[in-house]
């Protein structure tokens, strides 16, 4: 109980209050305290990667052992991870060696770009669903969207003033309303965690 509940709650309380006070103190001692905390986060993050990799290998080796039809993806994932790591570590110029940089530039970057490019098609399909004029509000959304979209292309320049007004006033007002709620939610959640009222993140409650 001490190590699973009391100690974590105590650490959260002490560090939470300390970081809160630190935010208001610009003195170099306060800054170095924050830098120290940031460094600790990085160090813990580095160790956590080992746990992440252990999970990665465990999940994929189990899939391979089961020999189901999708296990080929697990083989590709493990071979890619080990291959890239070995080439990066053992390569002549480290991360600058030609094989590593070619694998990065001609496999990883295009794959990333492909996934990101899919977004345009997904936006089109989402827009089709969103802009169905089912009721008055949906119709207002449809009209607003058409104005904004037209105003953003070359032949719709006559709508620039209206588009600007929509983006600056109704759009910003709605966003700020949400942002105020989010800001208060973040403060309240942080205080609940610091004071030990919210403990769900420890599990079991």
């Amino acid at each position, binding site marked *: 109980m001490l190590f699973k509940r009391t100690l974590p709650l105590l650490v959260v309380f002490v560090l939470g209050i300390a970081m809160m006070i630190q935010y208001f103190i610009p003195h170099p001692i306060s800054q170095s305290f924050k830098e120290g905390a940031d460094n600790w986060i990085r160090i813990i993050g580095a160790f956590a990667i080992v746990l992440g990799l252990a999970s990665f290998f465990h999940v994929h080796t189990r899939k391979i052992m089961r020999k189901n039809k999708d296990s080929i993806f697990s083989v590709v994932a493990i071979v890619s991870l080990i291959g890239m790591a070995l080439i990066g570590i053992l390569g002549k110029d480290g991360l600058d060696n030609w094989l590593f940089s070619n694998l990065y530039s001609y496999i990883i970057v295009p794959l990333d770009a492909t996934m990101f490019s899919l977004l345009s098609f997904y936006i089109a399909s989402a*827009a089709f669903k*969103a802009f169905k004029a089912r009721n008055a509000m949906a119709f207002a959304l449809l009209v607003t969207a058409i104005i904004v979209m037209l105003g953003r292309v070359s032949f719709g320049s006559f709508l620039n003033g209206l588009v600007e007004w929509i983006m600056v006033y109704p759009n910003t007002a709605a966003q700020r309303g949400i*942002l105020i*709620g989010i800001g208060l*939610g973040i403060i309240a959640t942080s205080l609940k965690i610091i004071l030990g009222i919210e403990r*769900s*993140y420890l599990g079991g409650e």
Partner: protein
Amino acid sequence: MKFLTLFGILFLIIQGGSLYSEIVVEDVPNDAGEALMITWDLPDDVGNISMYRIYRLDPGAEDYILVGKVENPNVNVFVDHDPRYPLHAGTEFVYKIVPVDFSQNEVESLGTSLAVSPVAQLFNFNKVNSLIATLFVFAALIFFLNYAKTGKGLFIRKIAGLDALDEAVGRATEMGKPVLYVPGLSTMSDVATIASINILGPVAKKVAEYETKILVPNRDPIVYTIVHEVVKESYLEAGRPDAFDTDQVFFVSQQQFAFVAAVNGLMMREKPATNLFLGMFWAESLLMAETGNITGAIQIAGTDSVTQLPFFITACDYTLIGEELYAASAYLSRDPILVGSVKAQDLEKAIILFLMIACSIISLIAVLAFNTYAFNQVISAIFSF
């Protein structure tokens, strides 16, 4: 002799007036002693000047170093805060300002300053608004927590997305398919991730009670370790530790789109009956939500990322908008103390709303009737946090 001195002064004034140029160096307030502000009198022959070069003499150094330039000859302020030439609190520095003519030649220096040292401050007065707001939130939270302890009921409005969680898990159980839970792509430093994990606990418990399967892919290794523990504890609390499979919670990749590809692939292969996207999301939000939509899963999303909300609203059945994500743990647990914290947020929102309306009206009256600069400054200061 006195006559000669007076004559010399008069001569200098006629030549350029630099004798009266005063260089004042002041500490920049509310910082860690890393900046100094230098001001000087503009010379009379400012029309012949293209820019000013600012030189600094560091302690122990023999020569001045160039720390910056002001390219507008009518500007007479420079803040020395360059990480390449750092200042240190408590160390004295001397400055000199050298005008440069249009041929890029340095002309006579405007003089040198007194030795001044930057001062590290113990409180940043620019953050007073934040401090007041935080203390107020703190006070409101304590008040409502005590109020909740008295046993008086606190009303909390219905949140459709959270009410649907039971139905969503039940649907997965009936269909014999897993529940997919994505706790966002951010780190534990993000409060949205913590809020998501707070929701994951009750969801995992319900999944364990219904003897369904939950899949939790993770992008951040620290989040993965915490989520793993939370799900494991939830199974334990539900009395089903045997049903917990350690591979239900797994680390995928820190690469954003590699993670998306893996989760989308999982959705297409496993066809989860319920998809829960709760936490912080970026461009991947629509990619995942649309794929889930294609597979026919019931989808509940929640994020505090304003730019991603429209995508979730479009592609998901229910969406927790902004603060609803943070209210979720109180809503699900119905713990009076947690509900009290939600009421504290409501009070703060009411006060902010009142302040906004009141200040808008007062500001409008001030503009129409008085148009006072000082008054407008007060209003803008209130809203600057």
